Structure formats: structure tokens, C-alpha cells
């Protein structure tokens, strides 16, 4: 609700820029929030658009791997929970697109960029959800990692993004729990179920850790984002926190984490963990993952198949508006 829709004007630099830059810097230094109609440096706006859009895209692409289990959920209770969960992810996408639109871009444009491959989504969704246990592993590890990132973002310097995150974090709390519950049930079920659970954790553990992004020394945008208060913690800090949190949870599940180097380090007061395969990360992000093509083609197909519906609704609205005016004029 930012009104007047003149954000574009803020993109035009003028003589007042240095003064406004100083005001902006002061707000950031004072840990205040930047709001949509405030002046902001071009690069800050661009960085946010990129990050918020990618976050939104991740939410809606993320509906696919889990959504593909809705028709096959093994109980009606699980089916209902899964529908509600996947629906929430759609809602998160919506909140985030809204936040992004306050920066002066349209959702349609953002979708074009996604469909054209010019904006990305979280690489984790390029991995397949092969068994029911994957729904559990996604909830526990993928939502778990997402929550860790998102809690940090609730204090992001850009107001609408931070507010969307607060709403999302409230809703996320059930996602991780339902995933944990699925795995716990499987791990304490039949031998086949336990095997299914272990297999899912084996496949999702490393990709989940990579969700925090490249190591700090190889993360190109991190320093600037930290300075702007868009990011509050470094990739490695959050990843470490996630590892420390997950190890005892895995013990409760009775499942092992697939990392021979995972052990407690007394000196650091943290768990040490093995190297992640960053080549694979780069490869999957750049399009060569097991599901990239499938995810994109499904997304594009849904969008294209829906075009006639969106057009019809607009045409109807225009007709109705014209009718209202006709009545008013007569």
C-alpha cells in the first residue's frame, strides 16, 4: 500500500542524490527500515528485486516436488496436511511477489524473467521427490534450512520484505514439524519405512546445506548485502547453526546424517562437517540438475494454459465497468 506508483521516478538520479544517499545511510546505520517510497540507491533496489524475486520463485517452484505427492499421500490426514503445506508455499510466493512489486516491478515481469531463465530459484527444487519419505525430508531439512534463513530476514532493512518474512515464518513453523513427524513415524515403522526415511535424508542433507549459499569466501554479493542490512548473518554462520541444530534432531529420529566428517568439535563448540560438493551446486544452478527442465516446463505450461482465463477475467471486468458507466450515464 504505497500509493501513487511513482517508484520509477526514484530511479532517476539527480543533484539531490548525495543528500538522499546520506539520509539513506543514516537510516541504515540507525537500524531503521527503508520503505517503498523512500529514496534508495539503485544498486540496493536491484539487489532486493533480485533476491526477493528469487525467493518468490523458489516458493512457487517448491510447490512442485511436494505437490507431486498430494495425489499419493498414504493417509487422508497426511493428504490434508500436505495440501495445506503446499498451499502455504503458494501463499508465501504471493506475499513475496507483493513485497517485490513495491520496488516498482510487476509480477508479470518477474514471471517472465523466471520463465525466460533470467532469474533463478533455489537449487534445492531441482532435486526430485522420489518417495513419500522425501516429503518428510523436505519438511525437516529444506523447510528447516529455509526457516533459518527467513528468521534472519525478518530484520531485513527493507520493510515490506521484512514484514512478509514475519508472516511467512509464523506459517513455516508447522512445515518443519510435519516433516519431522513424517520421518519420525517412518523411522519407527516397518524396516522398509525406515529404509525409505534414511534414503531420503541421505539424498537431501547435502543439498539442504547448500541452500545457505556458497562459502563466505566465495560469496560475491554477501559483503554489500550485509552492509545494507539486507543480510544479517553470513552463509557459513547460518549453515553452522543449522548443522548444530540438526544433529541432535537426527539422533531423536534414529537416522544418520550422510557425512563421515561430522563430529563435535569441543574447541569450537560446534560440529565440524565435511566439504560440500560446490561443483555440483554450480552445475545444478546453471541448469544441469535432475529436474531443472521438468520444473520450468511445468511452470511455463501452467502459465500459458492459464492465459485465456486471465484474459477472460480482464475482459469481463472491462465489460462490467463499461456497463456501470452506461447505467450511471442514463
Amino acid at each position: 500500500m504505497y500509493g501513487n506508483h511513482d517508484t520509477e521516478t526514484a530511479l532517476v538520479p539527480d543533484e539531490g542524490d548525495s543528500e538522499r544517499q546520506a539520509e539513506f545511510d543514516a537510516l541504515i546505520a540507525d537500524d531503521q527500515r527503508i520503505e517503498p517510497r523512500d529514496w534508495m540507491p539503485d544498486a540496493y533496489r536491484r539487489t532486493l528485486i533480485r533476491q526477493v524475486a528469487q525467493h518468490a520463485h523458489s516458493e512457487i517452484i517448491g510447490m512442485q516436488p511436494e505437490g507431486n505427492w498430494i495425489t499419493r499421500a498414504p493417509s487422508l490426514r497426511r493428504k490434508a496436511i500436505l495440501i495445506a503445506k503446499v498451499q502455504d508455499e503458494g501463499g508465501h510466493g504471493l506475499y513475496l511477489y507483493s513485497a517485490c512489486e513495491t520496488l516498482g516491478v510487476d509480477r508479470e515481469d518477474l514471471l517472465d524473467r523466471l520463465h525466460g531463465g533470467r532469474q533463478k530459484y533455489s537449487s534445492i527444487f531441482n532435486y526430485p521427490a522420489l518417495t513419500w519419505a522425501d516429503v518428510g525430508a523436505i519438511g525437516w531439512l529444506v523447510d528447516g534450512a529455509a526457516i533459518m534463513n527467513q528468521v534472519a530476514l525478518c530484520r531485513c532493512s527493507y520493510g515490506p520484505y521484512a514484514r512478509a518474512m514475519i508472516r511467512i515464518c509464523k506459517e513455516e513453523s508447522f512445515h518443519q514439524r510435519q516433516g519431522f513427524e513424517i520421518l519420525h513415524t517412518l523411522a519407527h515403522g516397518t524396516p522398509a519405512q525406515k529404509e525409505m526415511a534414511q534414503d531420503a535424508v541421505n539424498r537431501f542433507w547435502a543439498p539442504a546445506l547448500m541452500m545457505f549459499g556458497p562459502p563466505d569466501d566465495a560469496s560475491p554479493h554477501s559483503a554489500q548485502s550485509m552492509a545494507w542490512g539486507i543480510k544479517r548473518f553470513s552463509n557459513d554462520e547460518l549453515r553452522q547453526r543449522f548443522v548444530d541444530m540438526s544433529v541432535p534432531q537426527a539422533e531423536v529420529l534414529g537416522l544418520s546424517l550422510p557425512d563421515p566428517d561430522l563430529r563435535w568439535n569441543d574447541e569450537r563448540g560446534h560440529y565440524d562437517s565435511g566439504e560440500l560438493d560446490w561443483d555440483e551446486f554450480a552445475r545444478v544452478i546453471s541448469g544441469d540438475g535432475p529436474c531443472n527442465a521438468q520444473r520450468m516446463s511445468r511452470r511455463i505450461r501452467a502459465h500459458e494454459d492459464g492465459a485465456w482465463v486471465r484474459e477472460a477475467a480482464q475482459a469481463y471486468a472491462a465489460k462490467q465497468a463499461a456497463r456501470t458507466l452506461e447505467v450511471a450515464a442514463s
Partner: protein
Amino acid sequence: MSPPAVTSALSIAALPATAKYALALGDDALILGQRLGEWIADAPQLEEDLALANISLDLIGQARILLSYAGELEGAGHTEDDLAFWRDDNQFRNVHLVEQPNGDFAVTMARQLVFASYQYELYRALQDSGDEALAALAGKAFKEVSYHREHARTWVVRLGDGTEESHRRMQAGLEAVWPGVPELFEPDEVSLSLPSVAADPAGLEPHWARFVDGVLAEATLTRPTPRWRSRGGRSGLHTEHLGHLLAPMQHLHRSHPGASW
């Protein structure tokens, strides 16, 4: 591993009439809920993914209550999941309309208009059922389907009176689902045997028709007059589509007999 002892024992014919009735209504809700669940992530607009998910959730909620109740009345320990996952297609009692494939958005909205308007009249009547459990369910479900009906009305009007293409598709959607209409209002043995419990299907039709015809008129659409009609869902004779719907739905559950999830 042996399959659960309870599953083989299910005999629809031996069920008390009220259980059969609850099963029929529950199957309608379950199968349509399953169908709508197929839309999630493929809707024309993100906002609509959420709306269809809500409707699907409401229907699955109704199904869970109704199937649990049928199992309870049977008294053989069958749970909602036993009934949902261990029956073959000829033991399902839903009407053909709900098992029809989703088609395009217009077909789905046509089916929604027909079925939500039917459920609206059904649950309105069932609120006065002599069976307390059914009356209570109807009270809750009536609010849900009132919204489903309004959602369908909104879309049918927009598509019917939108563009040329949407009008054509919407009319085609109606033609596709209309053969399933008479089955909804056909008096069946079970409801006839339960005059103080069940809603009289034939009695629902006039109210249904008044509403639906109003929507079609507003949408500039024509009520189809199909040359054939569906028959047999309430007695377990289904279309080929139901088997394809049940195969993925039941596969995982049946692959691990006796397991809990």
C-alpha cells in the same frame, strides 16, 4: 507381512443403510477433493492455486468425517483410511461426475458449479436430518460449500461473459459435465430407505436448477441437453477414470500393509 485383518472383511452390502449413505456422500467428497488436488501448482494464476487448494481441503475434511462415521456405524473397526485405501473401484459409491478428469479450467469450473450447487442443497437439507452426526456435519459443511458455490459462480460468469474463447470453452465445459447431472438427483435405494435421515435427491433439484439456471443466464451460457447420461455410480458401476484416479491414490498405502504413516 500380512495385510491388516480388517480389510478383507469389508462388505458394502452388509453395511447398515446410514453407513452406506455416509459412504456415498463421503466418496463424492473424497474423489472430488482428490481431483482438485491435482490442480495445485497448475492453476491459471497463483491466487487460484490457493483457492482450489482450500476447496480440496474442505472436501477431504468432509470425506474424513463421513468415512470415519461409516466405519463407526459398521462397527468392524474400519478407519477412514481403510475405507479410502482398501476398497476397489466397484466398492466406491460416488457419482460419475466427481471422477471426471479435470480438463481445462472451464471444465473444472463447470463441474464445480454443478457439484457445489448440489452439495449446497444437500447439506442445507441434511441440517435437519434425524441422524445427529449427519446433521452436525451438514451444518459445518454447508458453510464450506456455500463458498465453493460462490467461487464457481464467480468464475462461470467471468468465463462465460469474458472473451470469445472463454465463452466457447465454458460452454464446452458445461457440455462435458452435464451428462453427470441426472445421477445427482436420482432417487437411490439407500436414500429412499432412510426417509428421516437422508435428503431426498429428487427434492433437491428444483432449488439447484433455479440457482444454476440463474448463473448460466448471467454468464450468457446455454444449459446443455446431452444425448446421454451417466448411471450406476451409487451402485458401484463407474467410468474407466475412477480406476486411474484410485491407482496412484491407493498405491503407496497398499504397498505397505499394516504400516502407519
